[in-house]
């Protein structure tokens, strides 16, 4: 009889276990949802969009010095390389980008900074 009661207890526990687990994911659900809603950035009236790395999003791995059109997007009109904080490019890609831009400058595909044409 004891075995049966144990078996019953075990069976009783097993259905309760999924039930107890059930509400937990449900409880977790609103929390991440409430997270972004919580900080409303009191004084800030404009919404700043999160910058993303163009190379990561479009999966461009080949940053070549010959691709002038691509590189020109990251060069200011004065010829300067646009900083990461303005373009949102991630560090590894900015590193490759800057070396590619420097190579392109060397072969007169892109202008050097501060040189008036």
């Amino acid at each position: 009889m004891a075995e049966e009661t144990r078996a019953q207890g075990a069976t009783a526990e097993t259905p309760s276990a999924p039930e107890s687990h059930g509400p937990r994911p449900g409880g977790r659900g609103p929390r991440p949802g409430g997270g972004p809603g919580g900080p409303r950035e009191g004084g800030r009236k404009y919404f700043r969009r999160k910058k993303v790395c163009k190379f990561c999003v479009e999966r461009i791995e080949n940053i070549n010095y010959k691709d002038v059109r691509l590189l020109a997007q990251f060069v200011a009109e004065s010829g300067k390389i646009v900083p990461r904080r303005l373009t949102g490019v991630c560090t590894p890609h900015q590193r490759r980008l800057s070396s590619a831009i420097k190579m392109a400058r060397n072969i007169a595909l892109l202008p050097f900074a501060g040189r008036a044409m």
Partner: protein
Amino acid sequence: MNRTYELMFIVRPDMAEEDLDKLISTLETAVSTTGGTVKSVERMGKRRLAYTVRRFHDGMYILLTVEGGGAVIHELERRLRVTEPVIKFLSVRIDEEQKRLDKIKAIRDARKKTSAAPAAAPEGGETTPAAV
């Protein structure tokens, strides 16, 4: 030593087509004598320079892909420096970068293949608790 280099150089825009052909053929022979092989020669045509080089505003761009050791590049650079109509040149080693790109491509292809298989596994796991 099997390395791949990319040699880009600019010749003056008023250079005759025949002279350019001659220049390229001499470079090709220089590569073969120093123990390298020319993989491709690409003429990118005339384009505007970003800044003036030796009072030129335009230039003919030529791209040479060469396989071989450092001696090949050394000889080519010496020749380009000496050749008067060449106004600028740049040599870049590309095999390591290519290796990196191939590696990334292989990883991405592998991920594409595996992404189809695990999609079925979680569904099977969800069905078992529902049956109990």
